[in-house]
């Protein structure tokens, strides 16, 4: 039997009048991988901050290795061996791998002299322990996200971590890198280190977790061994509602909405042809450099295609720039919504009307009243959780922000909606809302293209899926005839 490392009893935390945590219990044992799941706003981050000593709970008790601690500070947490790796890793891109790994320890021991040899030795030892291999002299800015994460993990190891908390560690990793990370986490677990990961991706939780705790609205909903859960219970506990995982089957129609013939752009994709009929949701998938994203960029005129023909409702159109695309009522939800799809510091209203501002330019001035009213309607229609059109986008969760990107384009009454990674970083409830919305739009006759590497998402929401390889169409499948494993095999086969 493994021993308990950390125990939280009946933790309450409020900010102003808002209760972020309402009586949460949590037990983490040494030598287990514990998954903390919860949707955005469920209190996950607050709970982590309580554990790392950054927040004082308003009420409740914390026990570490059996003894009660009071007045818990970040320094104390580190002394007790609690280490948190945040999503941005808090590492220095301008310093070498060795220095990044050794730095925290050097600072905490109050060293005055920078000992490069010692730093290198420590770094190599730490990398050895987790089986990572990197040149210790290389600058971190030259590392991939996965390797930066390795550096962050190495740094916690040399600081004698007993509990390692990772906040959404897989968010920016490819599936291969995720596997490597899991190998390392399992190796740490076998060294009797307690590992807690914050995650809400269903597949990943079932793959890596030994035990699971689910939070919702600041309350602990359930906790237990992973074997006690199935997918349905997990989703139910996470979202509080029954979400059916049905596949989308459109009513067949012969009305052509959008057609592409022999579209090519040198170095990106070649001879792409497909047709979207009324009601169709077309999926495009492929590995990272397969050209899947570039097709979206080309159809929206960001990097236009060099040859090939495009037809909208049977009429040939030319797309040489984003202006052309907008003129032809093509809408694009880009892959990186934070930098490409939204004005983060502007209000929900400004973002919602951003693509259709001309509409509100009446008699030489912008009609604030109509803009406000229509934004309110959109917030309701797309199920965005926001009190009013006024808050800045930055204050919204990933799912709600994505809904606003979609609303922005729907407000232009598009004929074709292209979504690149529509639900990356979006939690399950909001994901479901977005999917339902796509189906409704497709039935209304808007052409929908979903570009994604989320295979379950594609199978459930698209009626046909194009598989891209090295810039060419390697195959098209009807999603009703295929399951996730088969699709994954088709993707990775040569």
């Amino acid at each position, binding site marked *: 039997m493994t021993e308990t490392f950390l125990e939280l009893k009946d933790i309450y935390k409020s900010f102003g009048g808002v209760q972020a945590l309402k009586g949460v219990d949590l037990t983490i044992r040494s030598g287990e991988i514990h998954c903390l799941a919860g949707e955005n706003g469920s209190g996950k981050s607050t709970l982590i901050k309580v554990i790392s000593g950054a927040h004082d709970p308003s009420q409740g008790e914390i026990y570490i290795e059996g003894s009660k601690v009071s007045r818990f500070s970040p320094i104390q947490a580190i002394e007790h061996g609690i280490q948190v790796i945040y999503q941005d890793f*808090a590492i220095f891109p*301008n*310093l070498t791998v060795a220095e990044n790994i050794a730095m925290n320890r050097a*600072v905490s021991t109050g060293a005055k*002299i*920078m000992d490069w040899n010692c730093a290198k030795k420590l770094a190599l030892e730490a990398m050895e322990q987790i089986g990572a291999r990197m040149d210790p002299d290389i600058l971190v800015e*030259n*590392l991939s*996200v996965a390797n930066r994460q390795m550096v962050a993990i190495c740094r916690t190891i040399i600081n004698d971590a007993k509990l390692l908390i990772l906040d959404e560690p897989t968010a920016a990793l490819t599936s291969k890198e995720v596997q490597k990370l899991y190998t390392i986490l399992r190796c740490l677990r076998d060294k009797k280190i307690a590992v807690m990961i914050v995650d809400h991706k269903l597949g990943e939780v079932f793959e890596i977790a030994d035990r699971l705790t689910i939070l919702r609205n600041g309350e602990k909903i359930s906790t237990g061994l992973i074997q006690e859960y199935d997918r349905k219970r997990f989703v139910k506990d996470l979202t509080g509602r029954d979400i059916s995982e049905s596949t989308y089957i459109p009513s067949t129609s012969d009305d052509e909405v959008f057609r592409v013939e022999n579209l090519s752009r040198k170095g990106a994709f070649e001879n792409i042809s497909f047709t979207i009929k009324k009601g169709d949701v077309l999926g495009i998938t492929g590995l990272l450099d397969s050209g899947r994203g570039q097709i979206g960029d080309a159809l929206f005129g960001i990097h236009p295609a060099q040859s090939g023909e495009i037809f909208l409702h049977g009429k040939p159109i030319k797309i040489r720039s984003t202006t052309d695309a907008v003129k032809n009522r093509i809408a694009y939800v880009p892959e990186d919504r934070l930098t490409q799809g939204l004005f983060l510091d502007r209000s929900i209203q400004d973002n919602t009307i951003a693509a259709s501002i001309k509409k509100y330019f009446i008699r030489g001035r912008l009609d604030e009243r109509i803009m406000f009213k229509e934004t309110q309607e959109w917030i309701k229609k797309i199920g965005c959780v926001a009190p009013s059109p006024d808050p800045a986008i930055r204050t919204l969760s990933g799912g709600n922000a994505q809904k606003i990107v979609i609303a922005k384009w729907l407000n232009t009454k598009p004929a074709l909606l292209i979504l690149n990674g529509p639900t990356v970083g979006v939690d399950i409830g909001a994901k479901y809302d977005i999917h339902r919305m796509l189906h409704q739009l497709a039935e209304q006759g808007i052409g929908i293209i979903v570009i994604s590497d989320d295979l379950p998402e594609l199978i459930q929401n698209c009626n046909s899926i194009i598989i891209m390889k090295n810039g060419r169409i390697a195959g098209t499948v009807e999603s009703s005839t295929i399951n996730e494993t088969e699709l994954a095999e088709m993707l990775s086969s040569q």
Partner: protein
Amino acid sequence: MNNRIKNFLTTNEMIVVYIIIGLAILIGSVNPAFNSISTVVNLSRTMLVTLIFAMCEMIVIVSGGIDVSFPAIACLAMIATGNIMLKNHIDSVPVAFIMGALIGASLGTLNAVLIAIVKMPSLIATLGVSSMTSGATLAIFGAKIITNLPGKLDKLYKVSLFSYTNADGITYSLTILILIPILICLLGWLLLKFTMFGRGIHAVGGDIRAARIAGFNVKGILFFVYILSGTMAGIAGVTYMILMRAADPSVLMGSEMMVIAAVVMGGTRITGGHGTVIGTILGVTLIALVKNNLIMLGVPAHFQTFVVGLIMIIGTSITSLKAKHVANSVKV
């Protein structure tokens, strides 16, 4: 190993070295008078004060900030030291330097308070301090240039490390003051590379939030950096006064852009976190070479300014293109 050599040959520093060598060969082949020791002596004289400025500016930029107040601080330190010493009949070299350093340090502290505590952007804070300082200098000491420096200061000018007489009987002597920037470069190198404090400056410039999480005293580091910069500016002012045998309350104003250009050309990234002492020395050398010796190519005066700008753009675009290449290259 091959890769290492290749990496070494394409560092920012080496690129500046290539430009310097290319320029030297060009000037030397057009005008053989360039190929003499006198060029080295003249060049080091031109570089002397600029190098002190460049070193403190480099450290500030590495910490993620920028300092444009050093010419004003140096001018004040110069004119104030000269005036006070003359009025009180003090004649001592150490006193001059200590006074200059203290004046610089106090203005550096003002910069530090504005940046680390009031949290003003460093450009605006130092711009304000610069303007205030320069205004106060003229208001208090007037625009008069002091040329009758105290005897010992004036004598120091004539002390040289070595001198050289050419065939025409003109003597070139390398002033002992060159030891000041050499010493500063050496100490700066040790500080940045081998002390935790110096690494902390890099850390703050790389990611200030991560530095705080790692446990660095971020405020302390910023204070140190700006006070150091101010102190160095004060010392540079006194050095300039001795070198030129005069104290001029506004002579250095406007030199900040050239210094920043030299620092950036030496591979220091303006966004912070990257910078080396060697690169800075090379950047200053290049600028000095252009300023001093372009005339030997027969380039008219106005074109010189043009060429300085051109070289700046070429030099810095190489480094920024390299940075872009790093950002886009395949990660390991």
